[in-house]
């Protein structure tokens, strides 16, 4: 049975205005769905509802904004449906651009911070360990919970903004310590160090874990390398695309899993399911749907490319030129681009022939012209969604493979580590 505080009841009665009333009515109905007995405070939010899909998402945003909605806590904004400054370079229709921009404006009017990125954890809005937050965007949810140890339920679009406006969420699920224990054990067995060190490894492992985890919290044991933050980002995005992973524990790596026992909060450790090299090889193969070597575009940056990734890319492309037949696109956020510029790593990338799209991505904005049929990417999330959403063929490869292919004008992959493993 749900008990509301006096403040919640007042909000529900309209004391904080009609927008907060509407948002609270949705939070309260969802509290019943979740079986919550009370609501609790969050101190930060990330809104994924910013993605413009059509009239319904726009009407929802403008309804809230016109009722005077204001966010109650510091709030970041996910990608939108359009690169406000760069859309004219692409196949976006003026009507789409105008409506997506209206939706952006509606969320800005609510007082949220115009971060326009699906990697808010790489901005100043990064939450801290143990912080209670309400985040949307599947990759960001998995990253915040698992890599940072902040606490968010898996908030869907349209609810995330209601939580931001009310500052209240149902006190259930991953907000509570007891629900954050591992439920399924996956153990790497005889996976060579060289393969674990390959820069595709964590994206591929994430894709596989997402499929194996079902609706459980997976614990992954046996990783013998120290992943960089962007590798954990790739893992989280992959696992939250192929599956519904909102929290994972990498033993010895993520903050709630210093040991196997800790990952399970001292409860009985289940019998492990093993992951071997053959499983990883098969998972990697699934991320490629193209069969030839044709290549129209290299696409990087899902989740949005970070400064560290710009730094990693710069020396690979310095002094080289992409084949003029192949587009080379990086999707990123405003802040990341600025930081890359300051660090001096953007210039060689642009000279190489790369284009940069901000605020959105190729999945959220209808920007690709129809002649773009075959893509190559190092992002498991792009590789997972592009064939269905864009009706394109895709090849998954390492960052170096993507660069070499762009130079050659056709798909080239260094398979050595995956074949011999």
């Amino acid at each position, binding site marked *: 049975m749900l008990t509301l505080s006096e403040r919640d009841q007042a909000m529900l009665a309209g004391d904080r205005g009609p927008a907060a009333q*509407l948002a609270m*009515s*949705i939070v309260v*109905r*969802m509290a019943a*769905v*979740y*079986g919550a007995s009370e609501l609790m405070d969050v101190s930060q939010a990330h809104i*994924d*509802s910013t*993605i413009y*899909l*059509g*009239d*319904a*998402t726009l*009407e*929802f945003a403008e*309804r809230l904004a016109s009722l005077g909605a204001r966010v109650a806590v510091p709030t970041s904004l996910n990608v939108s449906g359009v690169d406000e400054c760069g859309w004219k370079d692409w196949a976006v229709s003026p009507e789409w651009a105008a409506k997506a921009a209206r939706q952006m404006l509606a969320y800005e009017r609510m007082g949220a911070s115009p971060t326009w990125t699906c990697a808010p954890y790489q901005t100043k809005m990064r939450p801290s360990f143990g912080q209670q937050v309400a985040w*949307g*965007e*599947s990759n960001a*949810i998995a990253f915040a919970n698992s890599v940072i140890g902040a606490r968010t*339920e*898996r*908030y*869907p*679009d*349209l*609810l*995330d903004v209601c939580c931001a406006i009310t500052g209240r969420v149902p006190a259930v699920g991953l907000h509570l310590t007891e629900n954050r224990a591992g439920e399924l054990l996956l153990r790497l067995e005889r996976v060579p160090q060289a393969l674990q060190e390959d820069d595709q490894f964590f994206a591929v492992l994430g894709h596989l874990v*997402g499929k194996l985890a*079902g*609706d459980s919290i997976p614990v992954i044991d046996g990783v013998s390398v120290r992943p960089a933050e962007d590798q954990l980002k790739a893992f989280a995005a992959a696992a*939250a*695309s*192929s*599956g*519904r992973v909102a929290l994972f524990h990498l033993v010895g790596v993520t903050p709630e899993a210093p040991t196997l026992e800790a990952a399970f909060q001292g409860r009985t450790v289940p019998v492990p399911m093993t992951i071997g090299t053959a499983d990883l090889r098969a998972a990697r193969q*699934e991320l490629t*749907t193209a069969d030839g070597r044709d290549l129209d575009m290299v696409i990087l940056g899902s989740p949005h490319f970070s400064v560290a990734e710009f730094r990693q890319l710069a020396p690979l492309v310095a002094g080289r030129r992409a084949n003029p037949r192949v587009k080379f696109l990086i999707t990123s956020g405003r802040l990341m681009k600025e930081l890359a510029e300051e660090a001096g790593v953007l210039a060689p990338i642009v000279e190489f022939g790369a284009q940069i799209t901000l605020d959105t991505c190729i*999945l959220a904005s209808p920007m690709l012209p129809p002649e773009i049929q075959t893509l190559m990417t190092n992002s498991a999330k792009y590789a*997972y*969604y592009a*064939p*269905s*959403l864009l009706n394109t063929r895709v090849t998954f490869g390492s960052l170096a493979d993507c660069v070499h292919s762009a130079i050659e004008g056709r798909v080239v992959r260094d398979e050595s580590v995956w074949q011999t493993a």
Partner: protein
Amino acid sequence: MADRVIAGRSIVEGAAEGEALVTTEALSFWGGYDFHTGEIIDKHHPLAGVRAAGRILVVPFSKGSSTTTAVLLEAVRAGTAPAAILTTGVDSFFALASIVADVMYGKAFPVIALEPGDAALLRTGMRVSVERSGAVRF
């Protein structure tokens, strides 16, 4: 019509009737459902290419993108949503989409939680009716 009844748990109340479309694989509506046509488009999913608009969709749970709810809201507005969604266990994404569809357009669709064993009784092509109580007749 019906000769068998499953006692489901009504998560978002409503009545609906239609042809069942059953899958044991989770589905993301973003990247998985075209709200212009009501068709499942996730090429990794066994139901890729199948139209779910107006049908009683039986799916274990939502996966993937948190934009699943927004796609469903668009589908309700466009008249291309499933007539009802039946899950195993409570799925908050489908529930939220239905609740917001109610708030925005007065058009909630029933969301029912079934026991896994009960869901396994349903087959694609069966005529199914869903009642406000959560009872599922087939």
